[in-house]
């Protein structure tokens, strides 16, 4: 449990930053408007100093990504000025142009190409600098790669395939590639003259807690030579590792903190991001999970569930209206257990009994949903039909509520029933959308997630499996989703939670199973769990 405690403790890393550090890039009064309606950025000014980690935080839709895309030349700004080492320069026209200025970006999702070897990926698209008469100079490539890795302190075998590496190392390779591209674009040999500026767009999203720490150690090491803009909404990370923080809200900079000079608490930062109370106060308002009295009927029983290579001998009961959490680091088997219960994965041994009926190993989600199970994942791209209007996304699992039987007993979807059902959910969850006919891809991340959870609210299954229910969404949308989940819980819907955020367990769960390497280490109550986590 040690690494959890380390991760949660807010250790302020010693910051040697001083205000005398030279300003590397400065953007002044950037304004950007999309489609004449949305003002994505409104007079935003930021400066990035040499050799620092600068965080830009804000809710989804606050304008973080737009700002970064302007800096690397994907979007042109409507107005604004850009200065490089105090000298005014035009905005980059495209990412290659930005590269020549020493600015590069590592995206959250694009990631690596798993079936390439490390050195192949490192020089992907840069090969023309390493060819002689059309032939790749493999020795030179590997030699350069070696020296770069030594310099940047990445320990891995250059000949191994990327999929063999841990996710954190993959991210490091991506960052190394960004630095290397800048060096090659600005001219080799002039090292030290150009300070590379690497923009990291939510780099830690797919990483487990200890992988995050590893990545940050690496970044702190690289800070000696490079500057970073770190886009994130994971507050503890931002507090722990960055030198300065800008808070963006509704396209404006609302706060700026120099963390080496002033003390800011997590709560204060939260409040600045959302502009209203944080979910710590939500915790206080709703209280924590309680152990359920034993007399409540058992809804779901899992006994000795085993899937080779993933998890072993998992046993637990879920009572009516109870929320059970599976907690552990990435790779502990928690999400595989959740997927097995919903029938996405099969199992080898053991039993799942729901309301007295044993579930088959290879039933598939179709048969599980019939038995009263539900599954809500935070990965909206997976679960939502992004190019469907909201109403269709709601009714896809609620056909029985929108169908009328006409002649010859053919079920016919009634547009009126469908619309009123969707409108109810849009209103209940405060989904910001022009109408229920709005296609889901045009909604913000939080609102997409609300559509996802809303359809289950209407379905009201007996057991709802939650996998990272609030991943990647802002604090405001989080509150709305917790509120709905807690209401469902009060109405007697049982839940199983799998997540990375211990606070989520504290809010939702009554009983928590600690998993490690596919086995249950201990079962604790909400109170014990909070004690362990220091919450």
């Amino acid at each position, binding site marked *: 449990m040690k690494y959890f405690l380390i991760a949660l403790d807010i250790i302020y890393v010693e910051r040697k930053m001083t205000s005398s550090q030279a300003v590397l890039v400065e953007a002044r009064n950037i304004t950007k408007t999309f489609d004449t309606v949305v003002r994505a950025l409104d007079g935003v000014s930021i400066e990035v100093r040499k050799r620092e980690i600068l965080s830009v935080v804000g809710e989804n839709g606050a304008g973080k990504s737009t700002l970064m895309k302007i800096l690397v030349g994907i979007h042109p700004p409507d107005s604004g000025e850009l200065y490089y080492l105090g000298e005014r320069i035009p905005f980059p026209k495209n990412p290659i142009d930005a590269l020549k200025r020493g600015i590069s970006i590592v995206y959250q999702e694009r990631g690596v190409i798993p079936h390439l070897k490390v050195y192949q990926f490192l020089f992907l698209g840069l090969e023309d600098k390493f060819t002689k008469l059309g032939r790749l100079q493999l020795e030179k490539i590997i030699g350069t790669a070696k020296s770069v890795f030594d310099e940047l302190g990445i320990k891995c075998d250059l000949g191994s395939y990327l999929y063999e590496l841990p996710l954190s190392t993959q991210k490091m390779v991506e960052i190394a590639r960004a630095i290397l591209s800048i060096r090659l674009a600005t001219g080799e040999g002039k090292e030290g003259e150009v300070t590379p500026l690497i923009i990291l767009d939510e780099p830690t999203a797919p990483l487990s807690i200890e992988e995050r720490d590893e990545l940050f150690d690496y970044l702190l090491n690289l800070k000696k030579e490079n500057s970073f803009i770190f886009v994130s909404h994971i507050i503890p990370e931002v507090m722990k590792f960055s030198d300065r923080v800008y808070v963006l809200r509704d396209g404006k900079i609302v706060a700026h903190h120099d963390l080496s000079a002033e003390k800011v608490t997590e709560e204060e930062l939260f409040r600045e991001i959302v502009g209203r109370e944080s979910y710590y106060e939500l915790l206080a308002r709703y209280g924590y999970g309680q152990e359920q009295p034993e007399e409540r009927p058992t809804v779901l029983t899992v006994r000795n569930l085993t899937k080779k290579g993933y998890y072993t001998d998992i046993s637990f009961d879920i009572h009516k209206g109870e929320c059970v959490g599976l907690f552990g680091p990435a790779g502990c088997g928690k999400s595989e257990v959740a997927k097995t219960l919903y029938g*996405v994965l099969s199992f080898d041994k053991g039993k799942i009994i729901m309301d007295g009926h044993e579930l088959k190993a290879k039933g598939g989600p179709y048969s599980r949903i019939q038995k009263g199970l539900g599954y809500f994942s935070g990965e909206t791209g997976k679960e939502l039909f992004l190019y469907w209007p909201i109403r269709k996304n709601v009714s896809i699992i609620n056909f029985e509520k929108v169908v009328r039987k006409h002649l010859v007993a053919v079920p016919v979807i009634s547009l009126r029933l469908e619309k009123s059902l969707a409108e109810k959910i849009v209103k209940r969850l405060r989904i910001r959308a022009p109408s229920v006919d709005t296609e889901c891809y045009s909604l913000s991340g939080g609102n997409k997630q609300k559509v996802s959870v809303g359809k289950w609210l209407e379905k009201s299954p007996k057991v709802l499996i939650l996998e990272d229910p609030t991943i990647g969404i802002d604090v405001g949308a989080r509150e709305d989703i917790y509120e709905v989940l807690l209401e469902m819980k009060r109405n007697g819907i049982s839940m199983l939670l799998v997540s990375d955020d211990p606070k989520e367990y504290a809010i939702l769960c009554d009983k928590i199973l600690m998993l490690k390497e596919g086995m249950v280490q201990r079962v604790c109550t909400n109170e014990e769990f909070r004690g362990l986590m220091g919450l």
Partner: protein
Amino acid sequence: MSQTIVYREWLHRNLNTIVPISGLLLLIILLRIANPFFLTSWDSVITLIYGMSFFLIAACGLTLVILMGSFDFSVPSVLKLSAMIFAVLYPSIGFLSIPSALGVALVFGYVNGLLLARFGIPSFMATLATSMVAEGLAQIISGGYTRMITDPAFRAVSTTMILGLPAIFYWSVGLWLVAILITMVTPFGRAVYAIGGNLVGANLAGINVFRVRVLVFMICSLFAGLAGIFYASQIQGAHMQVGVLDTIPLFASVVVGGTALTGGVGGVHRTLLGVLIIRWLDSGLSMLAIDLNIRMIIFGAIAIVMAILTIDRRRIKIMK
């Protein structure tokens, strides 16, 4: 300025509707110029109906499969096989040959669906293979000969005149409407779009993907079988050339109507437009005495251009 953006956005969103309609209008004008007798007499209208009806039925079935993101290359072969069974068995068992032909068609649909849904074989591969089987069976059943049926009752299935129009017109429009209703208003139709649009999401939403896939392939083959029966009745028999050159025009008419080959976008209602365009183009080109091979080249080119225009690139992350 903003007006232009709104206008452009609208144009972009409705491109797959505007292109087929304006294409059809353009085609009518061109055909009218090239042939002064085009659509001037009732007879020419009836000829057009005969030329299009069986084709529309087959195309409707195919549209369902394409909406689901799959392919069915066996449609022309199943059409031929069912026409052949109908014609070969008719002299001995009469109209009982219709259920026999449709039964065989359904078996082909079931096998196609099973190969995809149970064994995970990509549908274009599976259906190419089953189309070979259907071709072979048709050859064996007919012995390679053309089967002519002179019984007026056989011919009446398609050609009975009702209110001045042949029966096949009502059959095809009726089946077209049925297919539209299935896709537009039933949960089953929603499931077809869901599978075509986001397979993982459809599975997570508790859609019985296996059942829907098999059923859609069976419906497609049933429509192909019906098309074969009406066509056999219309031409008074069956021969080995039935449906031979129809694969590309069938796919072209689905795509020209605005249904994307990637699945999830479009609809059966659009296929009527595509069929009108492709069949009119075909008959127009043959009226102008353009060589069959050149016609095939033109159809191939049109199919490619329309595929480019209708595929919504936002929805495709990776193209392989």
